[in-house]
């Protein structure tokens, strides 16, 4: 074990340029049950060895070196999993890093993790491609020029010495840090300075929630929300399934309450009250579109009503200036909340402290503290303190900062507005950036000390009180980067390695707090934690004061209500696939269709259909967004967003980052191709300049903006162009306006009849015309997707991309409807509202190859390049494919993807991300979901080697593994005990386009909404029954 430090810290030039990857493996997770100390040491032993190998695929032979000494237990090419912690955001989800030959390749959710419960979001899944990023800094920079650590350390120590002597201030800016070890070293680093401060700056912060708790509960804490305990869930704008605080955890918890069964037809009731269309809003039982300025008043009105029900009417009017347009909704809501008191939850994403105070008051009235909100065991997933940030800006402008150190956030990009810090930062005597790439602040900073990629570093995390997790490196750093912790330690005069610091901290602080039943000494505890990825320890009970009733003051909205009539209210949000600007260089995330808008590559201005019509703009028409004096106007293409409230303009943050022009030529280049990033521009526009500080918080909504139409047009790269399950009225056959692709029912109807909502298919149960000619006697692989659990979060899309080497094709190709994702999520707005969004069904439907038994693609291929396996898989033989595309034409689900070009694989470093188990397809061949056939085969081999049948659940497809909601079940339909078999018998089960008799192996479980039986639009119901009538005579397929 003593060799670890050498190994990790080594910056010796063993690397052959960027093509070399070193191996440092720690603790195999192959079979946790069997791992003991001995086994662990065996596995850990090979960490000594360093293997350098060239890229993959067609790498030149001379750089492909074998292991100098074969590590014990390592089998070349075999997948090895390491438990770790995801660093994509501060949520601290459990991570399982799949590595092969020393290359981390596939990020998976860590099963049984207390927070993420085996799920992982799209951002977490997309980490490998940012690891193998050839544009990452490979070493420190001194005034923009490559330097070495010795020089850097010397210069910085000297500068810090001066600052100490001159008693100047030191400011260290980071986003939320959940690592106690790192926090300790930050504290240690800052301690010697007279005026030193660690400023926590979250680009999208939840500062107001913490501040409100400071006022209502005398503790600046973020409660740990327990959505799984909430029967009634009311969210004011909080996109907890998408981006809010800890989406994977919340999705898992939410989905647990969304599985009504025949025996127990119960589920949670979820109401979303929001201005823009969020992913969470698309999944709500009831969605109310409101103007952002109404959020506070509505929260206030709700509190008034609940207070009345609670028998403690406290204020006559809590919300001054609230209109009563939603009285009915609020009355109902108050009643439902009160009926479910102690088992309900009200959350809000408002950055208005007053509103958050009232939210606290609501939860307090409803007795939710201690049940659905845990403040005593709080969450540390968001610690941003906006008032500190505001002070920093003042200090910087006033030229009062002596040293500015910035880690993990691009201060110049994310912190801008009516002021510009560029000049102020230029005046700071010592500026240090820890950015892995030359972002805007790094370009302005004197020193750039790049941090490792998370997959290269040791770290720990305490996302919530009582949960400690470890992150371990899964490969040797690719460049001469240095961990933030190590840099700080070096400058504190106590150089150490991250590994040493971590062990020391854990031995001193964590080990004593271990749970009582944890056996063994520290080494055993450490090894166990390393293997498990996390340890549950005694929570540090926070001191929470009693509810301070006096803190609740009437919400004065007068200030907000004074509006120019034609002004738009701005709502800034972060996208599901792009939580902050740290991910701006991740092509997988850029190409991930937004779960709601389905747009890829860049941000845009979302307008309600009514406003778009008023302004005379269509999708892609560029509009100019002006936000008053001192702020640079933004020009963004329009996106017409169903369900968005009128008078609202929604723009995603984290775009327009420096260096994103690198994606200009990301896709195939030919003479009609349009660049992904227009020449001289960046990918998207930086909307951070529209954030404003108000009342001690960074306000991401409410700012007034004016919109003007411009003459330019930039077509949006949208993967879905038609959004309704109702066919266009002008071409709709009578009685068949609606297509029952997504079946729905309501909870009361489901309780009465578990089969309610089923479309009547003509030949169900009738004899087949042809004999069963491909009986599957062995395995019969199948999949069941629970549409009621699926939130559309799109983690599976990136999981599939990573597992199956799906290429990134760029803006132009997506624009031409040629995205390559094998897995897509269809999103439908089933009846168009007027922008209010209440009378609209919104569905998400994951769609991939359905592996039909009567596959239309198979009969038409002239060269037998797509065939059926005896296990029920529809197999695509890339080698044999000549590319007639007939199969894709004949696919009713349009899930086949054609290699229109030879997609670029010139970046040899980036090619390391490719999964060697899956063929990289050449141009001119068809591809599609294989149901992760490589995993199926590996699972079968594994079972065979044990001489046992394949256990149910032993084989998981990539999409299934990552799904935070556990909406996807895969398995052997011939195995009577399998989960998939059980799901198939679920009365909610149906198959898409069953009437074609293609007999897909993928089935879906019908959506059940917890609404009144008759709230479905009468209109649609009529259509549905009409269509059924007409369907009776159809023999299609």
């Amino acid at each position, binding site marked *: 074990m003593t060799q670890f430090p050498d190994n990790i810290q080594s910056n010796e030039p063993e690397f052959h340029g960027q093509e070399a990857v070193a191996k440092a493996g720690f603790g195999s997770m192959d079979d946790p049950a069997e791992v003991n100390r001995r086994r662990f040491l065996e596995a850990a032993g090979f960490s000594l060895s360093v293997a350098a190998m060239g890229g993959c695929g067609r790498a030149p032979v001379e750089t492909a070196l074998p292991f100098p000494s074969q590590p014990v237990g390592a089998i070349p090419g075999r997948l090895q999993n390491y438990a770790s912690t995801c660093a994509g955001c501060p949520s601290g989800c459990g991570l399982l890093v799949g590595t092969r030959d020393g290359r981390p390749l596939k990020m998976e959710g860590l099963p049984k993790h207390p927070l993420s419960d085996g799920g992982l979001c799209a951002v977490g899944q997309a980490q490998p491609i940012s690891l193998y990023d050839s544009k990452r800094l490979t070493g420190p920079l001194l005034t923009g020029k490559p330097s070495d650590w010795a020089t850097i350390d010397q210069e910085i120590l000297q500068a810090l010495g001066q600052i100490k002597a001159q008693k100047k201030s030191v400011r260290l800016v980071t986003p939320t840090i959940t690592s106690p070890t790192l926090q300790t070293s930050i504290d240690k680093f800052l301690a010697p300075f007279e005026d030193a401060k660690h400023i926590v700056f979250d680009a999208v912060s939840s500062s107001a929630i913490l501040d409100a708790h400071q006022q209502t509960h005398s503790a600046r804490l973020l409660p740990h929300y327990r959505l799984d305990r909430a029967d009634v869930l009311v969210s004011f704008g909080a996109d907890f399934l998408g981006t809010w605080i800890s989406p994977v955890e919340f999705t898992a918890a939410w989905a647990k309450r969304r599985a009504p069964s025949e025996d127990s037809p119960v589920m949670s009731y979820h109401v979303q009250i929001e201005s823009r269309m969020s992913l969470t809003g698309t999944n709500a039982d009831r969605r109310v579109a409101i103007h952002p300025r109404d959020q506070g008043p509505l929260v206030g009105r709700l509190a008034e009503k609940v207070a009345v029900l609670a028998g403690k009417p406290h204020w006559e009017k809590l919300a001054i200036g609230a209109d009563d347009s939603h009285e009915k909704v609020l009355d109902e809501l108050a009643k439902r909340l009160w009926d479910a008191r102690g088992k309900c939850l009200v959350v809000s994403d408002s950055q208005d402290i007053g509103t958050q105070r009232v939210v606290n008051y609501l939860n307090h009235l409803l007795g939710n503290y201690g049940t659905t909100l845990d403040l005593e065991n709080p969450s540390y997933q968001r610690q941003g303190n906006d008032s500190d940030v505001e002070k920093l800006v003042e200090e910087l402008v006033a030229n009062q900062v002596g040293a500015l150190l910035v880690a993990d956030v691009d201060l110049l990009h994310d912190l801008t507005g009516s002021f510009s810090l560029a000049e102020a930062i230029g005046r700071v005597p010592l500026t240090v950036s820890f950015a892995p790439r030359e972002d805007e602040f790094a370009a302005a900073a004197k020193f750039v000390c790049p941090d490792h990629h998370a997959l290269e570093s040791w770290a720990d995390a305490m996302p919530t009180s009582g949960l400690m997790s470890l992150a371990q490196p899964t490969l040797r750093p690719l460049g001469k980067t240095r961990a933030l912790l190590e840099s700080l330690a070096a400058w504190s005069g106590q150089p150490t390695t991250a590994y040493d610091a971590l062990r020391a901290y854990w031995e001193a602080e964590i080990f004593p707090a271990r749970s009582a039943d944890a056996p063994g000494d520290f080494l055993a505890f450490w090894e166990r934690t390393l293997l498990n990825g996390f340890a549950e320890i005694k929570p540090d009970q926070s001191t929470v004061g009693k509810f301070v009733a006096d803190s609740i003051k009437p919400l004065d909205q007068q200030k907000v209500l004074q509006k120019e009539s034609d002004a738009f209210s701005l709502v800034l949000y972060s996208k599901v696939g792009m939580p902050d600007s740290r991910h701006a260089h991740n092509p997988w995330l850029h190409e991930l269709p937004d779960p709601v808008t389905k747009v890829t590559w860049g941000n845009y201005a979302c307008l309600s259909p009514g406003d778009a019509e008023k302004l005379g703009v269509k999708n892609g028409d560029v509009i100019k967004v002006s936000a008053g004096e001192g702020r640079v106007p933004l020009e963004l293409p329009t996106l017409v967003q169903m369900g968005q409230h009128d008078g609202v303009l929604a723009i995603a943050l984290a775009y327009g980052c420096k260096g994103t022009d690198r994606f200009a030529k990301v896709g*195939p280049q*030919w003479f*009609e191709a349009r660049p992904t990033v227009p020449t001289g521009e960046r990918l998207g526009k930086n909307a951070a300049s529209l954030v404003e500080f108000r009342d001690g918080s960074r306000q991401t909504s409410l700012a007034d903006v004016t919109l003007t139409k411009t003459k330019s047009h930039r077509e949006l790269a949208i993967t*879905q*162009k*038609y*959004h309704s399950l109702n*066919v266009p009225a002008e071409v*709709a*056959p009578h009685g*068949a306006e609606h*297509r029952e*692709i997504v079946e729905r029912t309501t909870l009361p109807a489901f309780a009465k009849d578990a089969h309610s909502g089923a479309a009547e298919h003509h030949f169900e149960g009738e004899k087949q015309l042809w004999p069963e000619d491909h009986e599957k006697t062995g395995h019969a692989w199948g999949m069941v997707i629970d549409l009621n659990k699926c939130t559309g979060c799109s983690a599976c899309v990136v999981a599939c991309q990573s597992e199956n080497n799906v290429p990134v094709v760029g803006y132009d*190709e997506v624009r*031409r*409807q*040629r*995205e390559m994702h094998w897995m*897509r999520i*269809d*999103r*439908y707005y089933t009846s168009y509202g007027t922008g209010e969004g209440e009378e609209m069904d919104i569905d998400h*439907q994951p769609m991939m190859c359905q592996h039909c038994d009567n596959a*239309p693609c198979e*009969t*038409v*291929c*002239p*060269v*037998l390049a797509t065939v059926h396996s005896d296990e029920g898989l529809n197999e695509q033989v890339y080698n*044999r*494919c*000549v*590319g*007639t*595309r*007939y199969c*894709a*034409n*004949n696919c*009713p*689900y*349009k899930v*086949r*993807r*054609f290699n*229109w*070009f030879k997609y670029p694989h010139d970046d040899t470093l980036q090619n390391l991300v490719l999964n060697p188990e899956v063929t990289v397809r050449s*141009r*001119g*061949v068809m591809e599609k979901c294989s149901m992760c056939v490589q995993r199926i085969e590996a699972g079968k081999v594994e079972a065979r080697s044990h001489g046992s049948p394949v256990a149910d659940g032993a084989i998981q497809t990539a999409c299934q593994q990552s799904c935070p909601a556990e909406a996807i079940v895969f398995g052997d339909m011939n195995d009577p005990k399998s989960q998939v078999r059980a799901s198939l018998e679920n009365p909610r089960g149906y198959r898409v386009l069953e009437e074609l008799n*293609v007999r897909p192996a993928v089935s879906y479980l019908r959506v059940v909404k917890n609404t009144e039986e008759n709230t479905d639009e009468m209109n649609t119901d009529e259509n549905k029954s009409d*269509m059924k009538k*007409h*369907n009776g*005579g*159809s*023999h*299609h*397929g």
Partner: protein
Amino acid sequence: MADSTQQAQAPTAVAPTAAELATLRPTLISGNKTPAQVTRDICAPIERGPTGLWWAAFSVALTALAIGTVAVTYQIAYGIGTWGLNRTVGWAFDITNFVFWVGIGHAGTLISAVLFLFRQKWRTSVNRSAEAMTLFAVICAGLFPVIHMGRPWLAFWMAPYPNTRGSLWVNFKSPLLWDVFAISTYLLISAVFWYVGLIPDLATVRDRSKPGWRKKIAGFFSLGWNGSARTWSRYETVYMLLAGIATPLVFSVHTIVSMDFATAVIPGWHTTIFPPYFVAGAIFSGLAMVLTLMIIARKVMQLEDYITVLHIETMCKLMLSMGCIVGLAYGTEFFMATFSGNPYEQFVFFNRAAGPFRWAYWTMVCCNVMIPQLLWIRPFRRNIAFVFFISIVVNIGMWFERFVIIVTSLHRDFLPSSWADYTPTTIELATLLGSFGLFFTCFLIFCRFIPAIAMAEIKGVLNDPPRERKPAKSIEDAPQGDAA
């Protein structure tokens, strides 16, 4: 052939002399030609060398071909992505062009084989060019299935040849494979039929040529033709047999092409009317193309005496009847869709008529059904310029018919999430242009080096009236019946 001609002529021989008859009624060939004159006229373009008009036409065609060649080369170098296709619309210009060109070919076979079997003598003036047109159209058509492949260099995998890949065989269930057989059979039979018909004329060219390359080549290909009764007898037997073999192809080839669509599950494709509908459409478009070519050729090659207004009018009638069948097919298709109760199919047809591609649909209906109705009017049929216009219109309409069938069916199928649009790229437009370039280049080379009209056949009908049935019926019925 000869027998039938003689027998058919027998009754007219006792009637007024040919010259007298000509003054009473127009003959098939105007200008009162003698056989020697025919030979001179038809061999003239070959012997005197190309005219300026020919050079102009040839350079235009060659330019188009060159543009197409560049486009195809670019596309093969970069990938199918240089076309406007997408994940939803997997075929568009490529297969549209393919079906269009295959369809064009059908009129040639109809004229040369079917009309031959039906003893339609007027065909002699146009059959050679029509057959040549068939051949070149099939070549153009054959190009598209190859270049539309993602990996055209592996096109030979479509052939069921013994290979070293174990038991790897082609998929006989796939309509694309049926296409391979249908098109290659068609090409082969058409080429042989055309060549056999050429032999006597090649011998004429050989005999008229001074020693030199032309004499050598013509001599080689005329296979030692000596004009003896035995040679004629053998020739006519073979010609008759080939006509018999070629006739079913008129129906089978486009039937099989239609199955590319009919066997699919896609609404708008999956329909049983397609085989007859496609055959009628093919003949319709082919006749239009024959007319286009004939009208150009008779001007450019000064063959007005041989391809007369009578020919044009007859062809117009044929085209009109085919156009009506096609119109009936459109209506039937629409009716069946609405009557079927299949919402997907109903939608596809409503979407054709009123969806984003309605312009293409209504272009098709106007060009193929409405405008050709003007041909009911005799003066229009006899107005060469007007007929030329109609023939172009029908060509355009028939191209759009295939485009409508292919693109509008694909672009909005079952799952609305996957609906997409389609816009062709410059490469696709250039490829279409190139296919016309190839066709006309081939055709102009044919006109320049090979007798464009079947001299041997035309001499047999020199003084024939355009329609012999009427006089035959009125004058003497019995011998006619025997001959038939």
